[in-house]
């Protein structure tokens, strides 16, 4: 009964969304307040209905209702409670429900926090948002309904893929979706602005927080996924340039560009049409990502959602929204004339360079991801595009971006003087290069990646703080330091996020170039040296878990005779899902992670053992978190909290 109610609520939400997408739009066109007023209650009703529906599905998982097909296929009574809940979105149908839940949540937020929005803009935004909801609710109800019952319910379920039964992965999808789907808000604002024919500073001030929120969530979501890959897949890799990873990375890059260009619109009222285009593309890449992941076209045979009907449906959604928005853009973009003019050497130009590099980087990832498909369709070549390609083709743009960053961030708006901006940066540049050279001389016979990473990281991090300090103006040091605390949060956010970029660059370079690896066969009781450590395989024993059995090793790590850690790498076998997994044991540290993996028993009675020293591994995720923190700081800036909707002109006559 409850399940049917959940199903019904979803259908009702679709009806509400249909109304919400049509009535306010017409109302806004006719300036009919009553018609426009439909949008707000509709958005909230839509959210509540979908939330109810989501609650029902969650309850079905928690209570192990095996009359539901998705529950049978993705759960089991013995599964720990956390994974019963995360099982709701650990499958195609349920994850789609989470998708629309978040979509409607953003719509509802636009109502709750959007009081100050001009009513026409708000009506149009909510209407476009509802159009997206209609498409996805239809997609779910027609091709991927989570509320389908089985005629004969089995006694127990088939359990969930054990690799997904992991805390890191339990919360990875919600974060990723909050990011992905949040970009629909930027999209809705862009389309609403195109319909309205007007983009101004107030518009940018509205769009930027939504983009920031999405970008922050995407950053955290991607970092979580990467962290999970690092400790769960068992060889210490953190990024594989897999199509599904690229699917989340492309919107992140574009959202990053959009954040910066929206600043230009906000401060200088220029780059308007480019910003609109980025907002459309950011959501476009979200949809492309959804297509890549759920159609199975590119990820080949193994993805579980490889139903061709689903792929076609998403492609149709993509075509309608991107086609529609880009057509509108082509028709209306010329109306977005910019006000602010700027010189070739200026903050605006620097941000154009930032946008260009980020957009090109996203484009490279996109081309690399779809190239196997293109090559097969058009040139009849079956080929692969993998990590070595992306490393070579993508990295140069990031190096360029990091090189320009500190300089561009300190250039004044409108018109700058390169020599003057560079003056405080020269010592930093020399220091960075000197440190890089030092690292180069210390490491013998390794790649240049490490030293280059050090140089760029110091340059970017140092530049971020120099920039912040420069904002305190002139005067004695003590005075400037006290002024530092009173700087707007946006300035702190900018410096923090940029420093996070530097930390991430350093960690990536360090992990790729200074990793220590050892692979060997070890008898029980034997030891071996790994860097400064001695590792002893004390014992290997069998342990029973709730829904798995485990072969667990006791490995003692010592350094100069003192115990560093006792680690227990495991090989697990999930008995219901009938799948083995490897659980690496990691001793996390500030400077390095010790990463141990136990492998197969050997013929001579020994065990295969893999061990790594991963230098600065935690810095990678710390870097991502610092970036996200920067985003949050910027989001809490005063100008977003007060009078966000105060347009400079009394809402007069938009050019329609």
């Amino acid at each position, binding site marked *: 009964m409850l399940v049917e109610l959940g199903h019904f609520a979803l259908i009702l939400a679709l009806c509400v969304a249909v109304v919400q997408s049509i009535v306010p739009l017409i109302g806004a066109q006719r300036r009919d307040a009553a018609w426009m007023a439909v949008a707000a209650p509709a958005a909230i009703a839509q959210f509540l209905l979908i939330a109810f529906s989501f609650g029902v599905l969650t309850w079905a998982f928690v209570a192990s209702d095996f009359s539901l097909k998705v529950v049978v296929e993705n759960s089991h009574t013995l599964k720990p409670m956390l994974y019963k809940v995360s099982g709701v*979105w650990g499958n195609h149908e349920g994850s789609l429900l989470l998708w629309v839940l978040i979509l409607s949540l953003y719509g509802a937020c636009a109502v709750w926090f959007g009081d100050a929005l001009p009513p026409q803009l708000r009506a149009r935004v909510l209407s476009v948002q509802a159009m997206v909801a209609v498409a996805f609710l239809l997609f779910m109800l027609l091709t991927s309904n989570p509320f389908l019952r089985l005629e004969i319910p089995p006694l127990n379920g088939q359990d969930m893929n*054990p690799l*997904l039964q992991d805390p890191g992965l339990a919360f990875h999808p919600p974060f990723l979706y909050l990011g992905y789907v949040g970009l629909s808000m930027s999209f809705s604002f862009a389309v609403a602005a195109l319909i309205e024919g007007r983009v101004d500073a107030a518009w940018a001030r509205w769009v930027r927080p939504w983009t920031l929120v999405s970008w922050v969530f995407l950053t955290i979501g991607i970092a979580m996924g990467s962290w999970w890959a690092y400790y769960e897949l068992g060889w210490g890799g953190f990024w594989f340039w897999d199509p*599904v990873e690229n699917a989340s990375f492309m919107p992140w890059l574009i959202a990053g560009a959009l954040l910066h260009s929206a600043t230009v619109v906000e401060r200088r009222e220029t780059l308007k049409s480019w910003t609109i285009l980025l907002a459309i593309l950011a959501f476009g890449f979200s949809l492309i990502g959804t297509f890549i992941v759920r159609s199975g076209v590119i990820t080949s045979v*193994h993805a579980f959602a490889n139903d061709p009907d689903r792929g076609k449906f998403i492609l149709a959604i993509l075509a309608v929204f991107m086609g529609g928005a880009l057509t509108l853009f082509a028709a209306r973009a010329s109306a977005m004339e910019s006000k602010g003019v700027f010189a070739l050497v200026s903050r605006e130009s620097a941000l154009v360079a930032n946008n260009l590099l980020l957009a090109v980087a996203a484009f490279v990832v996109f081309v690399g991801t779809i190239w196997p498909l293109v090559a097969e369709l058009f040139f009849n070549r079956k*080929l692969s595009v993998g990590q070595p390609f992306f490393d070579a*083709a993508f990295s140069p743009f990031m190096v360029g971006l990091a090189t320009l960053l500190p300089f561009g961030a300190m250039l004044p708006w409108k018109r700058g003087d390169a020599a003057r901006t560079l003056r405080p940066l020269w010592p930093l540049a020399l220091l960075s290069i000197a440190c890089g050279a030092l690292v180069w001389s210390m490491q013998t016979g390794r790649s240049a990646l490490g030293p280059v990473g050090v140089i760029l990281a110091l340059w970017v991090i140092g530049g971020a703080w120099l920039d912040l300090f420069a904002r305190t103006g002139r005067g004695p040091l003590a005075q400037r330091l006290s002024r530092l605390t009173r700087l707007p949060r946006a300035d702190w956010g900018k410096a923090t996020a940029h420093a996070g970029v530097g930390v991430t660059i350093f960690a990536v370079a360090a992990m790729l170039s200074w990793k220590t690896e050892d692979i060997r066969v070890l008898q029980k009781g034997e030891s071996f040296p790994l860097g400064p450590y001695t590792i002893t395989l004390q014992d290997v024993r069998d342990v029973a878990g709730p829904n798995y059995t485990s072969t667990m090793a006791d490995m003692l790590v010592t350094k100069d005779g003192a115990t560093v850690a006792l680690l227990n790498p495991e090989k697990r076998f999930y008995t219901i899902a009938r799948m083995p997994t490897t659980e690496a044991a990691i001793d996390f540290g500030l400077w390095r992670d010790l990463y141990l993996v136990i492998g197969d028993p050997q013929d001579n009675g020994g065990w295969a053992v893999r061990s790594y020293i991963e230098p600065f591994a935690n810095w990678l995720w710390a870097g991502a978190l610092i970036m996200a923190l920067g985003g949050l700081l910027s989001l809490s800036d005063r100008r977003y909290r007060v009078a966000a909707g105060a347009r400079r002109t009394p809402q*007069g*006559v938009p050019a329609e």
Partner: protein
Amino acid sequence: MKRLILAAAFAAATAPAFAVQPSEMLADPALEARARDLSKELRCPVCQNENIDDSDAQIAKTLREVIRARLVAGDTNEQVMAFVTDRFGEFVLLKPATSGWNLLLWAAGPLMLLGGVAVAVTTFRRKGHGDVSLSSEDEARLAELLKD
């Protein structure tokens, strides 16, 4: 979600983790290092997106043994790669060859950057700098205001 599918894919394709086995490794560290480098550029033919160094599939193991045998026999890196691609096709190359239409793939980024710079510069030139005449939108609004 991306990860879920990735995980499903990994799980379906292989048992996770164990890749290069200790027994496969060559005694000569220089040759072994070359073998590892080559392994990272070769895709496991039956896996989703794994190189043969990381893969647990039988075919990946065979390929690891084959490239080590070729290296021991004195092949250069290029000869080993040619040996493998002759038998498995360019599908196994994780770094696509820079030939034919693939040039487009490799040139995509630089070309777009050049294009972008060209567009930015022409827009900048056309807009001019210091031109502060009213935009047509503003003129329309001004006309509208004056009408009232």
